[in-house]
């Protein structure tokens, strides 16, 4: 409890944005683009004593976890344990729900994004999110979906750069070969797995430091799931990734660290039970509750 009070400096977040030069898109001519961006890492995310409420109902409490840059952290746990709520606190989206309230801190590179005076718009420019169900903008083409964040967010990119950004983002999301000849087609004309990768490309186009994934594969078939899991493995070099998943095999496959949350009973508050390296959590958990869950005894 002696940690210094983090300063709320939204301006600092803004400078992070401008620091990133368009050099990210250099080397385009080489056809193959690594999903990773050389010399670029994600942000460190630290959650301190987080409690989230819906109105007066305490949904999840006492969450403490640290996500190091270039790591994938999986949040697992039974339905209703608050793992999605925790995820939605990391980009302030929880505060966007009508009765959403929080206590505690979420530090991104030592800036408390839940503090007063922090502009959620600036936070979300650095913390991207991929949702459970693919949600491309139905009125927009594939191309426009990818640049939507830049165009609507007034991110100061010249439209002449958009073509390159679209190609890089779609390539990173592993979708470019499938759609490069029909960028003007409706985003909703793609298959479910393609739509989800389009949504990932859309999130990557604004170049966040942190990528939140809320059960990104739960609406997808096994092959699309595999494609996205491979993608996560490549993206983690450049982005801090936090993924919520119901699929424990998926957590074991993609994550470096696993956090297990549970909820004692209906209507009660969820809580973090255990966090540790994925290999240990799945082979030798400290807590009985974790072991019961991952071996399928409960949940």
């Amino acid at each position: 409890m002696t940690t210094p009070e983090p300063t709320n400096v939204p301006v600092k977040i803004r400078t992070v944005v401008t620091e990133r030069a368009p050099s990210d898109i250099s080397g385009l001519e080489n056809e193959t683009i690594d999903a990773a961006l050389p010399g670029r890492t994600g942000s460190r995310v630290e959650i301190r004593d987080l409690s989230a409420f819906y109105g007066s109902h305490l949904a999840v409490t006492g969450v403490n976890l640290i996500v190091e840059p270039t790591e994938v952290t999986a949040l697992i746990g039974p339905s209703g344990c608050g793992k999605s709520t925790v995820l939605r606190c990391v980009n302030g989206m929880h505060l966007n729900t009508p009765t959403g309230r929080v206590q505690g801190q979420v530090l991104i590179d030592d800036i408390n994004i839940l503090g007063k005076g922090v502009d959620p718009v600036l936070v979300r420019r650095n913390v991207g999110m991929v949702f459970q169900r693919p949600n491309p903008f139905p009125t927009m083409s594939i191309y426009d979906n990818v640049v939507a964040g830049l165009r609507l967010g007034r991110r100061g990119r010249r439209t002449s750069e958009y073509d390159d950004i679209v190609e890089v983002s779609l390539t990173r999301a592993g979708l470019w070969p499938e759609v490069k000849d029909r960028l003007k087609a409706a985003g909703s004309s793609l298959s479910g797995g393609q739509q989800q990768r389009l949504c990932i490309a859309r999130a990557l186009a604004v170049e966040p430091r942190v990528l939140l994934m809320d059960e990104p594969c739960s609406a997808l078939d096994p092959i699309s799931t595999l494609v996205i899991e491979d993608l996560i493995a490549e993206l983690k070099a450049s982005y801090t990734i936090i993924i919520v998943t119901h699929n424990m095999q998926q957590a074991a496959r993609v994550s470096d660290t696993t956090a297990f949350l549970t909820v004692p009973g209906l209507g009660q508050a969820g809580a973090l039970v255990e966090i540790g390296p994925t290999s240990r959590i799945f082979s030798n958990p400290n807590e009985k509750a974790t072991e019961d869950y991952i071996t399928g005894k409960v949940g």
Partner: protein
Amino acid sequence: MTDTIVAAPITRRQQIVQAPIRHRGRRRVVDATMTGILAAVMIACVAVLLWVLGYVASIGLQFLGPEFLTQTPPGNPADAGGGFVNGIIGSVEIVGIATAIAVPLGMSAAVLIVEYGGRLARWVSFLTDVLVGVPTIVTGAFVYAIWVTQFGFSGLAGAVALALVMLPLVIRSTAEMLRLVPAELREASLALGVTKARTITSIVLPTARTGVITGVMLAVARAMGETAPLLLTALGNDLFTEVNPTHRMSTLSLQIFGSAITGYKAAQARAWAGALTLIAIVLIATIVARLASRRTFTSGR
């Protein structure tokens, strides 16, 4: 020794398997009956609509010609000939102004109600429900009292009265359409670091566009046919073609009403032709709006 055939007892499993088959005949009958009833109801609805359209068209077409669309009514209503050009211009102009007032206001109110909520939004929503129940003659009387008594009869006063009639319709239909936009799209946009205002203007409203335009066209059609509020505001003017909305103006609805109650055959003929013209204008406007609202993708550039 004769073989006795003993019926095997029917097992529970057989009962379950056979159960749907036993009712198959009855379900077929119910299915056919219901399909028949629904088809009959549908035919009845369409038939009434076609009857109205056909009846108006059959009489109206006898008197509808180039003359009708280019001339004002004759000085003596008993005379044949003449037309409703002043009413056509008046209707389009007054409803156009009313739409220009009601649509931006109505859409803003709907955005407030659905996207922002809060105490003010609840009040706006409640007042909308009240306003939709106000008889249009009362709306006309209200505009008469606060506007016409000060500035006299005018097309503009009529447009304000019609805007008041259209406003709750636009708010309600737009709000319904905004509620249909999935919350996930709003979240997707916000998660990209897009402001709420920009999310509404660039994601939510375009997604709801088709439904919003349909609602607006219903309000326009309603306003086109309104007569009562215009009697007390625009008043009517059959002497010449008036295009200045600050003066008293005629509209098709006023002319249909005025001509139909005269008792002269020639005037009633013009009323029928006017009715047909009114239907045609609404139909054309609806078709144009439908074509314009076809989903097109903004180009990559």
